């Protein structure tokens, strides 16, 4: 592909050389279409629309150096939730039955790379009606390239928590069946490394998917999220908060209303300080005929340092008329009046600012424990 | 003479029958109240008179001044002098109230073959009507119902009633959501409108408006038809005993 970096070319070559037999881990996993997608579309390149502000090059370098399989799976699940790693025979069956069409590697080149280098995978399956008492904790999967499939069967209620140590190059597919509820908590700690993840969720009629993501910066941190509203009264609420003192965070979110009568909300609060760079791309897509859709997005950013940068692109792509869609985005600074007010009550300036920053972030935070552990909330 | 004559009116919405043979006659110079419990078809009746799409008339007739209305478009009915005060007036952002009122007045004058009032004359008239309804002058500059409170929306309907001077006014739950002061202002507006040549149909759930606008006749709507008619004392009986009293 024109303009590809040397790393991208090397990675593409290495991936194309990886024969089917080299894939010893989970041989049932369909790598053919990943290879095809990569051959057809190539790897994304810096400055392409979806990579306008993030250079994927370090990621290619990391991918080239990645080791293969190995399974040090650290997943804890409450009773009733079935957890099967990809090397267990029933995982193949669960995967075949539930993995859907949302993760098309042709549309997501990073998913194709992930598939070809796959070293660890796990299926988390909540049977119909199960009300899981405690969260499923995914602490680590033991390989660089990982795939997680979470299935919430009709009427099930489940919380999945991805903890900081677990992040590598991970694809998470979430299937929320009719009337099910999946709460997905993600915590991303500060890191000097390079991490890319892709979350793809489908929500059937009456189902609900809630993502709450907390992030600190990394040398390169890229989060792609696609969610599809697949039926009436299906809902998705994406909340993401970040506080960057350094590093690079790129959140790319696209919520697609494929069927009418669904609701989606996106709430973003970000603080960029130090020498950080925060990128947010948040799109709402309404398919033709998806009448009665109700979608909104708000993104608020604070820029607290002269060496930080904020890039925000909320987008609306509306192809049906009977819809309620809106977005709002702001970039600003802390209210100096409020700082002064707090100081006049005896609070030191840096405490006052910290207090206000936390209050600013609070709107996008539901995972209080996570927020505390990452220093995002008081 | 009969201004509004409704005979054996049957109406369906989405294939579901709502009115089943409603008949009603309102002579000029009178105020009739149509009362009934929730779901009795009151709003359907008001809206079908005005020609709202999505309501299917399966039988019966509606005539105003002896002229059949049911085949006419909503704007044609309006131009013949039929006015509906909406229960939930919609907002039209950016279109000023004054602009809207003038356009409606002009359209109706044109249909009647009359000279439309000049802008200056009309503005004067509108300001007077607004003042009578205790609405501030900037009310006329704001977008139609845009950001109005519930009470302001209802008063705006009465403002339009006073400016458009229809032959027949159908007021759909105009009293709902009004505090007592606003209710008095609205009632005064309706009373000011009453005249020998026009008629008013008040569609309401409660009798409290009827303390201020005294009706000549009261009709009780239930199950899609008029089940009882009487003078104003009927309203007090209903208020005291509830609609359940009718079934006993």
């Amino acid at each position, binding site marked *: 592909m024109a303009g590809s970096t040397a790393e991208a070319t090397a990675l593409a070559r290495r991936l194309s050389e990886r024969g089917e037999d080299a894939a010893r881990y989970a041989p049932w996993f369909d790598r053919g279409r990943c290879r095809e997608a990569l051959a057809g579309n190539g790897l994304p390149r810096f400055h392409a629309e979806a990579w306008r502000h993030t250079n994927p090059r370090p990621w290619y370098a990391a991918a080239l150096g990645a080791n293969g399989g190995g399974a040090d799976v650290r997943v804890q699940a409450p009773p009733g939730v079935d957890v099967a790693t990809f090397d267990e025979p029933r995982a193949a069956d669960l995967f075949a039955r539930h993995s859907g069409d949302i993760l098309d590697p042709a549309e997501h080149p990073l998913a194709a790379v992930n598939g070809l280098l796959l070293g660890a995978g796990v299926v988390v399956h909540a049977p119909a009606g199960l009300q899981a008492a405690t969260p499923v904790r995914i602490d680590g999967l033991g390989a660089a390239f990982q795939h997680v499939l979470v299935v919430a069967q009709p009427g099930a209620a489940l919380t999945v928590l991805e903890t900081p140590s677990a992040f590598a190059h991970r694809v998470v597919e979430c299937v929320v069946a009719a009337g099910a509820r999946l709460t997905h908590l993600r915590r991303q700690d500060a890191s000097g490394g390079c991490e890319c993840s892709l979350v793809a969720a489908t929500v059937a009629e009456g189902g609900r998917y809630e993502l709450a993501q907390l992030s600190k910066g990394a040398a390169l941190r890229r989060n792609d999220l696609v969610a599809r509203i697949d039926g009436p009264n299906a809902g998705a609420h994406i909340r993401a908060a970040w506080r960057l003192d350094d590093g690079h965070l790129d959140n790319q979110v696209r919520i697609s209303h494929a069927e009418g009568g669904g609701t989606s909300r996106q709430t973003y609060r970000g603080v960029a300080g130090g020498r950080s760079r925060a990128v947010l791309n948040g799109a709402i897509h309404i398919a033709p005929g998806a009448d009665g859709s109700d979608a909104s997005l708000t993104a608020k950013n604070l820029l607290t340092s002269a060496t930080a940068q904020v890039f925000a692109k909320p987008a609306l792509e509306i192809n049906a008329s009977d819809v309620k869609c809106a977005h709002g985005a702001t970039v600003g600074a802390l209210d100096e009046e409020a700082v002064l007010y707090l100081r006049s009550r005896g609070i030191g300036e840096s405490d006052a600012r910290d207090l206000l920053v936390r209050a600013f972030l609070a709107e996008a935070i539901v995972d209080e424990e996570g927020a505390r552990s990452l220093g995002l909330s008081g | 003479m009969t201004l509004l004559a409704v005979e054996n009116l049957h109406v369906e919405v989405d294939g579901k029958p709502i009115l089943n043979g409603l008949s009603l006659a309102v002579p000029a110079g009178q105020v009739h109240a149509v009362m009934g419990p929730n779901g009795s078809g009151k709003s359907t009746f008001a809206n079908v008179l005005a020609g709202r799409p999505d309501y299917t008339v399966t039988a019966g007739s509606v005539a105003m001044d002896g002229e059949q209305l049911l085949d006419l478009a909503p704007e044609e009915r309006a131009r013949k002098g039929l006015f509906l005060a909406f229960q939930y007036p919609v907002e039209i952002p950016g279109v000023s109230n004054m602009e*809207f009122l003038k356009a409606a007045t002009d359209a109706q004058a044109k249909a009647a073959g009359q000279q439309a009032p000049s802008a200056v004359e009309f503005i004067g008239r509108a300001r007077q009507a607004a003042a009578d309804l205790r609405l501030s002058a900037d009310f006329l500059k704001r977008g139609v119902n845009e950001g109005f409170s519930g009470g302001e929306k209802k008063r705006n309907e009465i403002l*339009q009633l006073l400016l458009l001077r229809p032959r027949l006014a159908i007021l759909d739950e105009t009293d709902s959501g009004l505090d007592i002061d606003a209710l008095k202002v609205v009632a005064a507006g309706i009373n000011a409108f009453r005249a020998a040549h026009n008629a008013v149909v008040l569609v309401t759930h409660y009798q409290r408006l009827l303390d201020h606008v005294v009706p000549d006749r009261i009709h009780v709507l239930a199950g899609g038809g008029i089940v009882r008619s009487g003078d104003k004392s009927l309203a007090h009986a209903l208020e005291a005993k509830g609609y359940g009293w009718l079934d006993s």
Partner: protein
Amino acid sequence: MPSSNPAIDALVNREYAAGFVTDIDAETLPPGLDESVVRAISAKNQEPEWLTAWRLDALDRWRAMQPPRWAHVAFPDIDFQAISYYSAPKGERPKSLDDVDPALLRTYEKLGVPLHERARLAGVEAPQADTEGLASRGPAAPVAVDAVFDSVSIATTFKDELAKAGVVFCSISEAVREHPDLVRKYLGSVVPKPDNFYAALNSAVFSDGSFVYVPKHTRCPMEVATQFRINAENTGQFERTLIIADEGAYVSYLEGCTAPMRDENQLHAAVVELVALEDAEIKYSTVQNWYPGDEHGRGGIYNFVTKRGACLGARSKISWTQVETGSAITWKYPSVVLRGADSVGEFHSVALTHNRQQADTGTKMIHIGPRTKSTIVSKGISAGHSQNSYRGLVRINRGAAGARNHTQCDSLLIGDHCGAHTFPYIESNRPGAVIEHEATTSKVSDEQLFLCQQRGLDAEKAVAMIVNGFCKDVFRTLPMEFAVEAAQLLEVSLEGAVG
């Protein structure tokens, strides 16, 4: 298309009123683009050598470029060798209005822009101050008009009167001859030759366009306007406009565009550059009514235009207002580079697409100087099978302390087969700067139509009124006379749109 409202279904599409062809002998270069074509255009305009070289450099750069593909529009590749790059009425260029071919005068008369020095739209009164939204009318003010017909300017009115105030208003080809220093200093200074594919093309082959210079501390005594007309078949129009407001100057400039109805697409790739020095203000208003094509998407103008203003001086202001109802495809982002401290940029836009039209339009506000401010108001109306996108960039550079932007983007959808899209790009590099962006989507609801109809308005009038209300914030910023034209145009463009 079926509609829930039969009254709306009954509406009939009115014809595009400006769709006639003027039968006139034209001198047209054969299709194709190479060095000889560029030299021929330059020679026809009797240009100095520096400008010929400038054009040839642009041609070289253009050849190395690719057409942009990021816009949300779809059309087959254009064969740039199949287009003629120059067409002009035969004979000598008219020296004064008296020399202009009567057929051309009639053309502009028919378009409502008579080329005589009486009040424009004589007999028609322009509205004056509103009273609570009701327009009252008074006599129209005169407007100076430069009439550009295909590749050349055929007449400019009120030149003498403007000259008395020191204002230069003429075709750009005349300006190259009469005011070479100004042209040489500013041409390409705001939109450099290699800025983008179409700007590079324009730089190579631009034929005519308007030039305005308002001297220091001068308020231009009347509004100046250019009326662009494409007439010749198979010909592109590549005009170039340059407006310079010197320190403390003010000018309001209007632009109108029309073209005949044809089944083939025609390319219009203009470049407009505005320069505002210290304390100067330029107000630039466009009513774009290029032929939009028919309801099946046959024909229509490809309007690929680069418009940009530079607020060079402190406290300068540039304000763009556009009403876009025409063109098969619109690709246009009138922008402001806010270099001077405390300078102000504004963009007010109404873009209406109907049938198979596609528009990808918006603005760029580049904040470089301290305390610079920008305001963006965009109203998109999509009807029929059209696609309508707002695309805008707000960038706050590191030196823009205290910069502020406010953006409001609203979309109105009419019918279920169209698309309305919003792509705002927000980039901040400066703490303390404030950017606010809001976007909404709505439709003309059955409830709104019914309320209007219940009050006696017919559906057509009701839709026009609702759409006009939706656009009010933008129409407010247009010069009065243009506002009326814009509202009428919207009404005509919308006919048959609902349902």
